[in-house]
């Protein structure tokens, strides 16, 4: 719903994400802010922002797969992991540069996902989630049991920092920019997909696969596509992670990580790219501020002790998610559009 007084004068205008000058200015300001962030804030926030950017890539992929395509996925961390491992192997064993290793890591994750998704997308219902759980446990099993020279087994894999024209990307700031570039491209691409025929097909298949088939949409193909795109995104996120930490180990990508990615999608709102961004920001900022404020809090009120102070984090995050599930199962993005709409239509209720 547009603000009063704004009418689409062309399809381009009608189509574009940015319809008002105000929105354009906001976007530009936001991008500028992201660009100069490392210069403004301390290393702690730069690091938080970096992990947020990586998480955004992974979660946006999950949003496309789950939020748009309706394919619930509890293996996103495993796909992230397969991307991370592929990137690490390509970079450390075959000497690929990061700009090739990361996208190839995405492809590897998509291929790994494809093996599991193939069986489930043919069936009506939420069977994909079962195969993704299987993917999660088989990923773990394979990494640990394949010959050590392939994926490092229980030893993990380490890799050299990324390099661009001889410039070594190993400082917190440079890694932030590396992740920023990838995240911006991937998010922009996600918006592109969401607005294209593919994005519509995903939603159509999610909402009504019967009618979708009648529209000439190949339901199986579309589901598989949503899933492939989702795992590709996870793989890109994994590749970034590999260069961020420069060490890849199997226990960095557990089922519990996958569950948290889903939680971010729930909180942000199902079926909205912006929602995925909001979900990541909300969950991470709650978690990180708890963790940042915790030590100070412990120092101010020492008798409480760290164990008590930090343990409240679990309750709080659980509570936030519960609150969303109970009061706003469609997520923050939905709430935001309601507020926006009612404000624009005021004094008429919508």
């Amino acid at each position, binding site marked *: 719903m547009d603000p009063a007084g704004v009418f689409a004068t062309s399809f381009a205008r009608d189509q574009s994400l940015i319809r008002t000058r105000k929105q354009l200015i906001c976007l530009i300001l936001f991008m500028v802010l992201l660009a100069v962030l490392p210069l403004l804030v301390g290393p702690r926030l730069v690091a938080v922002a970096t992990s947020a950017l990586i998480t955004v890539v992974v979660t946006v992929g999950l949003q496309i797969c*789950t939020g748009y395509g*309706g394919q*619930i996925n*509890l293996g996103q961390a495993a796909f992230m992991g397969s991307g991370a491992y592929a990137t690490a192997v390509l970079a450390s064993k075959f000497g690929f540069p990061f700009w090739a290793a990361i996208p190839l890591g995405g492809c590897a994750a998509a291929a790994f996902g494809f093996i*599991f998704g193939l*069986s*489930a997308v*043919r*069936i*009506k219902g*939420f*069977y994909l*989630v*079962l*195969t993704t*759980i*299987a993917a999660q*446990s*088989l990923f*773990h*099993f394979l990494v*640990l*049991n394949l010959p050590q020279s392939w994926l490092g087994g229980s030893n993990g894999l380490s890799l050299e920092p990324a390099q661009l024209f001889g410039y070594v990307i190993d400082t917190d700031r440079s890694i932030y920019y590396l992740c920023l570039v990838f995240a911006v491209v991937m998010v922009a691409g996600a918006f592109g997909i969401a607005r294209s025929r593919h994005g519509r097909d995903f939603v159509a298949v*999610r909402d009504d696969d*019967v009618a979708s088939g009648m529209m000439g949409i190949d339901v199986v193909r579309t589901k598989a596509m949503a899933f492939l795109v989702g795992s590709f995104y996870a793989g890109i996120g994994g590749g970034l992670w590999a260069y961020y930490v420069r060490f890849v180990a199997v226990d960095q990508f557990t*089922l519990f990580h996958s*569950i*948290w990615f*889903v*939680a971010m*999608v*729930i909180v942000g709102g*199902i079926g909205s790219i912006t929602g995925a961004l909001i979900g990541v920001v909300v969950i991470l900022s709650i978690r990180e501020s708890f963790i940042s404020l915790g030590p100070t809090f412990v120092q101010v009120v020492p008798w409480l002790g760290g164990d008590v102070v930090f*343990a409240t984090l*679990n*309750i709080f*995050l*659980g*509570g936030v*998610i*519960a609150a*969303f*599930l*109970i009061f706003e*199962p*469609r997520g923050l993005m939905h709430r935001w559009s309601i507020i926006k709409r009612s404000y624009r239509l005021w004094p008429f209720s919508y």
Partner: protein
Amino acid sequence: MSEFLNYTINGALIGLLYALIAMGFIVIYRASKVFNFAQGELVVFGGFVVWWMITSIGLPYWIGIPLAFVAAALFGFAIERIFFSRLVGESVFAMVMVTIGLLILLRGLILVLFGPQVRPFPIIFPLQPVIIGDILIPRSLFIGGMITIVVGLGLSWFFNRTRPGLRMTAVAEDHQVAVSMGISVKRSVAFAWILGSVLSTLGAIIFLSGKSVSFLASEIGLAALPVALLAGFESIAGVLLAGIIVGIIQGLVMAYVDPVIGGSVGNVFPFIIMLVILFIRPTGMFGWKMVERV
């Protein structure tokens, strides 16, 4: 030979335990078509309640265990009331997502209620194994398996023979039809959650008797998924057979393949079975075949 027989029998009994956990899962699925991913957390919750009643408070078994079942029933009911009764009319997709959120919430809740420590679980079933010739069967699994079979057949009879059970089966088949027949979907779903929670607690008792309880126990919720799938998510009697099949395969793989590859393929094997089922026959062995009407 007797070794092989032993692995087979023990595998079958562990499979029956999976079947019991899967039963809780299936009961909820039948009523609302929801995959409850918090099933493992229900098991952990049930386990902690039993620990709390018997070990912590010190109630005798004959009071503590029934009380734990009552607590589990109330807990299941509360979950349904707080989350799922509000979601009536929302898509199944939304409800499945809610169970994933529930998983995180329950973990936090259990941590706060019972603390992070590993707790000793009371010895409900005697430790001495049942010995038949060379074959050696853990008593908790043996008695548990018997209980599971009785419960499974009982529930199957309930859902297929008794009036209230048949009503719930009607709900399971089609919500709209059920409503038009004047059956309360809400009540049926609430009952399913109560039953699912109670079955999880029973599962916890058999699983954990004489061992320890902590978060790690929730993994059995995932191990039960392949069993539920093999049974087609619908058939309660079928899940017994499915459990036995998965359990035997897993037991034999663990005994004969694990040592050869020097890894733990046995633990992931149920998931491999799951993938195979999805490729070959996703409706499971006993799933209701329904024609998708447009």
